């Protein structure tokens, strides 16, 4: 019984980590939200999320920092390449609030239904 409990606990830890890449990060300033869009590496080699609502979100992506939750979800990092785009459903967590004249910076918490294509 004790082992079953430990197994269940470990499974719970693993699944919640996979689902919450950055939701619990201290830099998140607002509630995470779901958005459909295209993740694109721009010509300046930075990452942006073009939402279906015609908004542009800057994606925080800094895999070298000592905070592993700031990396991209595994399914995203495996498919993303320069000059290609990933359409899909993303859950993003804001690092900066929405404000007029400011591009909002977000982290990608999770992603699903990803489809890779070339930049248009």
């Amino acid at each position: 019984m004790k082992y079953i409990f430990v197994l269940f606990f470990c499974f719970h830890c693993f699944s919640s980590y996979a689902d919450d890449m950055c939701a619990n990060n201290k830099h998140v300033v607002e509630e995470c939200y779901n958005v459909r869009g295209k993740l694109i590496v721009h010509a300046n080699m930075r990452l942006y999320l073009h939402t279906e609502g015609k908004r542009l979100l800057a994606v925080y992506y800094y895999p070298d920092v000592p905070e592993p939750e700031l990396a991209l979800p595994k399914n995203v990092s495996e498919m993303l390449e320069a000059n290609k785009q990933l359409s899909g459903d993303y859950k993003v967590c804001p690092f900066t609030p929405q404000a007029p004249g400011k591009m909002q910076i977000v982290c990608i918490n999770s992603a699903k239904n990803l489809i890779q294509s070339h930049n248009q």
Partner: protein
Amino acid sequence: MNGTAELRGSLQLLAETQAVQAARLASLELLEDIAHWRLMKCQRELADELYRYRLTKAGFNPNEPRDGHGMWTGGGGGLDLPGLADLADASDGSDDSGDNSDVPQLIDFGSDSDVNAFQNPKVADDADSFEEAGANNKAIFNDALDQDTQSTAEAIFGETSGLTPILKSAGANPYNEKNWDPDSAEQLQMARSYIGIVSERNPQVHFATPNDLTNPIQARIWNNSLTAAMDEDADLDPDVTNFFLRQEGIGRQKPNWPGLEKIISLGPFNNLAGGGDVPKGANTYIDFYGKLSTLKR
């Protein structure tokens, strides 16, 4: 005789009446056209107002500029929630380098903070010195621009407006071109031309236009962007499709994406606005990257 004269008179009267009727008809048609045109104009204005109303109601700013793909250049106006302004000030590490200690260095995502650089009070000190270049600016502003040149200039402005050449002596006014290092100034203009070329090969760039062309700093940068966009002598390796901005020795020094190799590096430049992993400083470089598989070396 009298009968013939009466007949002629009647015919003349008839012709005059027909002419008057034709003129009236033409006049009525013209009035109808004008009424139709006014109606269409009213409909367009109403549709525009309705669109703006819906955007405003949805929390967006309809006056916020869009890029070449119709994307909001900022937050789309954002939601006007109470207390948001305070949060923005506190968390915007890119603009306020003084309180960055608790915030990870954020990536330089564009020219949001560049705009603030133009508000530097030092600008006023050197407005006179910029007048010398005024004639050249006007010459270019008055030229009719084709859409491609305009678009390229907007990409150049959007990507490089926060950069100036390094200074000949530290502490001098960075907005006075007399203080600029000539080699750095030449490299920056070349970088602008190259970014213009990259934007044509890889249009995923930030398009921006100056919001106040009466500001001499913005006008000069826009002028330089236009000049670079029209530079037909710029010769960039055909493999180059990307560029990467970095501050030498600080933050990220190379992009994370595999399959691309650095082909040429230009700099150093002065990054006045700073932001993210490209902090403020006079050791800013722009590296140009191309596909590894097609490199001829």
